[in-house]
């Protein structure tokens, strides 16, 4: 017998062992199993997937369209996505070489990181942000470099902040607008300035625009609409949010052929292809889903108005986000930390929101409230929060 006999934990690689668990996961464990909780902590639409899309998925199974597809994704779907990109952003992508269908945007992002990063490469990403970015950069042996966004800028990313963090090792800039968790969007001047910054420092841009369809005001300003960025852009999008298809796990990447090809290499060995059934559903969604999207978008839009008005009325400062389905109110006036606020709101009033700190250090002092939930629970949640905030003031 050797003395260095290993037990199960020893087999976990050090870089995975040191990876912190998601702050959202922590909170999920606290909420899980509790009854009568109204949750504003859910980052997914409350709508059922539109029936015509589900119906197409059923039909795909019935006619036996349940085999592997091309690694890049079913040709019809890629053609439809190319048309969608042209129509939405006036950007031309060759469906045969520049579009890759993936298992959600998450896989696409993971592929992008693994395809472009060498150990020690730095990636600029803005906080507060979706919880998966920094871990996935790290898993690809890159170095995540957070850049702060601020309430005073309505959580838009500014070049001034980026300039403070860029170094000769910086390889890529990651963008996510409309943003989870703040709901922030970019306007045309922002996207132009970010493009100039990327070109000036010779960076690749990865833009996750999964909430793009859920933009309520000010227009959709995509990085894909900037021609001079085309050679250095990986555009990511998916069906989960706008089409309410989270469980289908379907996303895609658009990028110049050499980048698409590099991502496809990893995808073909690791994943083979996205679910063929989901791809059929996605084709239906992108071809015939406009009316369903419009109806859901209108509904989120009104609910956003309601939640922002309610929060400001109860004394929680909240800017009017123009996209996604989150609001990000400040709870600093209460004197509590985000986590204290969220825990007491949960324990005393049975309302779950995610503490802003789960989305990066600069999210401290804020709360993410998802308004993708029915009007009745939303009203009840706002009433309970109001009672809580009022009680805190006394």
């Amino acid at each position, binding site marked *: 017998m050797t003395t260095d006999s290993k037990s199960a934990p020893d087999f976990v690689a050090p870089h995975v062992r040191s990876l912190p668990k998601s702050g959202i996961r922590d909170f999920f464990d606290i909420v899980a199993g*509790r009854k009568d909780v109204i949750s504003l902590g*859910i*980052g*997914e639409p409350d709508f059922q997937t539109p029936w015509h899309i589900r119906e197409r998925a059923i039909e795909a199974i019935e006619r036996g369209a349940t085999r592997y597809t091309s690694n890049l994704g079913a040709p019809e779907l890629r053609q439809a996505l190319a048309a969608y990109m042209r129509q939405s952003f006036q950007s031309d992508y060759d469906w045969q070489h520049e579009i890759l269908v993936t298992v959600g945007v998450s896989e696409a992002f993971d592929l992008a990181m693994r395809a472009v990063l060498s150990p020690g490469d730095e990636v600029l990403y803005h906080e507060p942000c979706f919880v998966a970015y920094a871990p996935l950069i790290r898993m690809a042996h890159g170095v995540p470099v957070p850049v702060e966004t601020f309430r005073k800028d309505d959580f838009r990313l500014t070049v001034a902040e980026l300039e403070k963090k860029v170094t000769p090792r910086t390889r890529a800039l990651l963008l996510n607008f409309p943003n*989870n968790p703040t709901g922030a969007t970019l306007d045309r001047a922002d996207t132009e300035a970010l493009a100039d910054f990327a070109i000036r420092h010779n960076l690749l841009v990865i833009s996750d625009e999964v909430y793009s369809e859920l933009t309520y005001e000010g227009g959709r300003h995509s990085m894909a609409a900037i021609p001079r960025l085309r050679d250095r852009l990986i555009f990511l999008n998916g069906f989960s949010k706008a089409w309410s298809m989270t469980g289908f796990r379907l996303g895609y990447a658009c990028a110049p052929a050499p980048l698409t090809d590099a991502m496809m290499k990893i995808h073909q060995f690791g994943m083979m292809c996205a679910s063929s059934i989901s791809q059929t559903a996605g084709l239906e969604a992108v071809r015939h889903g406009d009316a369903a999207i419009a109806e859901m978008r209108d509904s989120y839009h*009104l609910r956003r*108005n309601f939640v922002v*008005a*309610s929060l400001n009325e109860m004394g929680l400062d909240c800017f009017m986000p123009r996209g996604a389905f989150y609001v990000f109110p400040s709870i600093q006036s209460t004197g509590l930390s985000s986590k204290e606020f969220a825990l007491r709101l949960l324990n005393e009033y049975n309302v779950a929101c*995610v503490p802003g700190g789960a989305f990066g250090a600069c999210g401290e002092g804020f709360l993410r409230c998802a308004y993708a939930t029915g009007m009745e629970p939303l009203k009840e949640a706002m009433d309970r929060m109001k009672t809580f905030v009022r009680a805190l003031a006394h």
Partner: protein
Amino acid sequence: MDALLDLLKKNARESDATLAKLLGTTEQEVRARIAAYEQEGVIRGFQALLNTDRLDTNDVRAVIELRIRPEREGGFDRVAARIGKFPQVESMYLMSGAYDLLLFVKGASLQEVANFVSARLAPLDGVLSTATHFMLKTYKDQGVLMESEPHDDRLQVCP
């Protein structure tokens, strides 16, 4: 359609305060717009949508197709107006195709509905023929499914 009307179609009991927040306006403005719609006859009433299959009543509903002879002046409108005054008639539409009027009729029993058709509708001047179909079960009414899909089975917290 006005977003206010959309919201009221979905839930007529929504409070003015909530409607105002949803639409980014004031309660007074909401009340004024609803009053104006009532005045103009756009809003004809506010009703609860019931699944009567779940109620302990023996009410019977029937769909009746009516062929009628149009009049030289007024077409179908005068006959339709007369028929519409019967309280048994819940809804009525002028149709294209093989018949002219489509009626949704309610009665306390099969016999009562049958009597209504034979004694009241069929003898009316201008009514050429009737065809009565009794309704057995309601699956969907006014855009609302009578059996909801199981809804919020989402994870309670997710990224």
